[in-house]
């Protein structure tokens, strides 16, 4: 029963979020600020993770190929498929759910408990739309760029590590990453990313927006935001894969 009521509250919040903005120019400015805060400032951690994951995928694939029947370029092929299909869109989104989601929930939750949201409402401003819409738009626009950068870095790091460690030459690796390449897989990955960006921002904002109490509850909202958005990412990942790949 509580779950149904929470889902209802979530959709009611969304209807408020997507109502007409009071001042378009202020919303636009807010969206640019959010793009910097939740998008650009996540670039460092995403780059680091992608580089090391690409390197590890290459080494692990190489260490598992012990049959002469399997061509060596399979290493490049596997690294590409893993990065594009799953690691960059899904795992990086899960990491962003932790970083960005907890940030959004605690920011909005703190605004709620310190009556800043009430102050917005008193001024006649649609607080849900003003606080949440710029975050959703910024994330849905910026996350695909982050994911493409992640794919590129992961695949590139795999090539470098393969060469340095002597498990595969750059030529073989390059052949592998070009082998049976379908651009649709990138489209699939980007669609997933946009859906995950919406889940991360809206679910985290929902938990922050309906926080009541004090610092303890803000912490709890932040944890719930990360947990619930992670679960929803995993579920929607399955549904989207079923719908788009098969």
């Amino acid at each position, binding site marked *: 029963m509580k779950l149904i009521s929470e889902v209802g509250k979530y959709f009611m919040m969304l209807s408020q979020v997507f109502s007409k903005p009071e001042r378009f120019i202020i919303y636009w400015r807010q969206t640019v600020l959010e793009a910097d805060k939740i998008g650009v400032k996540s670039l460092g951690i995403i780059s680091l993770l992608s580089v090391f994951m690409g390197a590890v995928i290459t080494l692990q694939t190489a260490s598992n190929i012990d049959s002469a029947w399997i061509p060596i370029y399979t290493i490049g092929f596997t690294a590409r498929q893993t990065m594009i299909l799953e690691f960059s869109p899904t795992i990086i989104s899960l990491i962003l759910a932790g970083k960005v989601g907890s940030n959004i929930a605690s920011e909005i939750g*703190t605004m709620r408990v*310190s*009556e800043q949201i*009430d*102050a917005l*409402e*008193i*001024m*006649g*401003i649609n607080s849900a739309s003003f606080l949440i819409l710029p975050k959703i738009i910024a994330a849905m626009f910026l996350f695909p760029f982050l994911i493409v950068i992640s794919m590129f870095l992961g695949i590139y790091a795999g090539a470098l590590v393969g060469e340095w460690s002597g498990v595969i030459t750059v030529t073989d690796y390059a052949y592998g990453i070009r082998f049976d390449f379908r651009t649709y897989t990138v489209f699939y990955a980007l669609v997933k990313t946009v859906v995950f960006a919406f889940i991360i921002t809206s679910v985290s904002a929902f938990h922050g927006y309906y926080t009541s109490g004090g610092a303890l509850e803000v912490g709890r909202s932040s944890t719930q935001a990360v947990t619930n958005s992670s679960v929803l990412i995993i579920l929607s990942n399955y549904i989207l894969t079923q719908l788009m790949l098969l």
Partner: protein
Amino acid sequence: MIEVKNISKSFGEHDVLKGISAHFTPGKVSFIIGQSGSGKSVLTKCIVGLLKPDLGEVFFDDRDFYAMTRKQQKTIRKEIGMLFQGSALFDSQTVEENIMFPLQMLGQMSKDEMLDRVNVCLERVNLKDTNHLMPAELSGGMKKRVGIARAISVNPRYLFCDEPNSGLDPQTAIVIDNLIQEITREFNITTVVVSHDMNSVIEIGDDINFIHNGLIAWHGTKDQILNTEHKELNDFVYASEFMQQVRENLK
């Protein structure tokens, strides 16, 4: 003038407000007093529309707030200024941006006009040249004054103050009290102050409403409150030793 009629509000099984009626007149500082948990803040939130009452009506100069559409309610909200207990300044904005924010969102002013308005408001609350400070750099009293400046920046017809003196030293509390009174008189605002600080009540209260058991149990002026025979109000007013001595001196 603000008029509330038969406001009731419950949370689960707990009836907080049981049909409260009251009116608040322009140019006067009206107080809502009562013990902690008596429903003072709930009543204020019902009046300004942050909480929807289960029953009852709220009239802002004969305009029935809860009979209005969202859009019409917005027009009334633009006429309301509110000073929150914790000031509720936006942490990520400077003092200037905080005061300018409602003007940017709702007004039709140019940037220069808005800046002029910000400076007038800051001067009014004696905080000249603090434009570029962040809320974290302000003391509690300064935050309250910025809160007042933000509330009056939109030229409100109605001003609500929720525990304006909480957490302030007695001298700063008097400064804030006097500021609220001066602004009320100067702009002929309908001011409603929620407080349990008897010093404030005696200092600036023109009209006092005492809430007890979810109802307005007593209504009168600050002169009447000191000589009241109302038992619960007496217990509330003369709870401190200082006020008991005041009563002795009055006798």
